[in-house]
């Protein structure tokens, strides 16, 4: 049976929360890191100002959940080690959809449960809004991400330009959260 991975050790010094406007510079840094990872750096056409306007202005086009590592000493500042960026979409035959645009954890912080925790946060948001689905795409060579999605019971929908599209329906989200 597919199960959402819960048997990981949460990093004790990491908090998960909704992003704030002041996080935009850091989120932009992580977006660029994700673009490098996906070999799409030449396609980055937004800036921190775009994020501030479109995520925190009057008309919010997206929402963001961040993983923040607390400062280890007084001299350091806390920094973001991962983020999940999503927006609301709509499937006419069904209803509201939570569309995950980006999920990224910085290289030094992988395999520590950060992605799972970000995803769990997003699933709770989806359930609270009575979403019928979550949907997203992943590059077909990203086998770690693909394994992560398969373990949670997501369904492979289609293939275009080397992207795979996955979905968790309402029942799967509820089932995963009860584990």
């Amino acid at each position, binding site marked *: 049976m597919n199960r959402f991975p819960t048997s990981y050790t949460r990093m004790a010094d990491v908090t998960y929360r909704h992003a704030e406007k002041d996080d935009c510079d850091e989120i932009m840094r992580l*977006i660029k890191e*994700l*673009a490098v990872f996906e070999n*799409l750096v030449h*396609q*980055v*056409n*937004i800036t921190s100002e*775009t994020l501030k306007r*479109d*995520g925190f202005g009057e*008309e919010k*086009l*997206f929402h963001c959940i961040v993983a923040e590592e607390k400062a280890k000493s007084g001299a350091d500042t806390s920094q973001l080690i991962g983020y999940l*960026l999503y*927006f*609301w*979409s*709509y*499937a*006419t*035959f*069904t*209803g*509201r959809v939570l*569309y995950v*645009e*980006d999920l990224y954890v910085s290289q030094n912080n992988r395999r520590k449960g950060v992605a799972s925790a970000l995803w769990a946060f997003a699933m709770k948001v989806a359930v609270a*809004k009575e979403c*019928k689905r979550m949907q997203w795409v992943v590059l077909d060579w990203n086998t770690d991400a693909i394994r992560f999605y398969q373990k949670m019971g997501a369904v492979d929908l*289609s*293939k*275009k*330009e*080397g992207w795979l599209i996955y979905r968790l329906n309402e029942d799967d989200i509820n089932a995963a959260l009860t584990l």
Partner: protein
Amino acid sequence: MAEFIVRDARVDDCDGILRLIKGLAEFEKKLHLLRTDTETLKRNGFGEDKVFHCFVAEARDHKGTDRPLLVGYLLYVWCFFSLSGRVLYVEDLYVDEDYRRKGVGSALWACAMKVALDKRSAQMQWCVTGWNTSAINFYKRLGSENLGKNEEYISFMLNKDSMKSAYSRISRD
């Protein structure tokens, strides 16, 4: 004079929009997947927390009840692609069988392109089923780019330049 007008949808259009959604579901042979109702449309399109936007085509000189006769609709959502920013994603475009080949689809599409340009969208994007040749031809005539093809759906895109060019052509017609 055209037999129809296009305008922003209103909350009391939801019954009419639902009828058209059923028409689209039948057309795509997906009626068995339809699980929505007027209340869901009202809440998600016209409530405080709305998630979609809609243009409708209304028949002129409709002699019948006092309610307008809706003959087509275009439903879209705003996306945020982290590489490009704001994108207008067209979820549905549908015209009643009796009103096809009269420019309804083009007029609805022009409304969407105008709002995409006014809001400085980086792109418009949408999908179409692979067997829908008349729709595919319409999109190709607009100058849309085919993003890639899988067996069932074709994904199209208009960028800023091709949107401007298509809009000036369509709104002249």
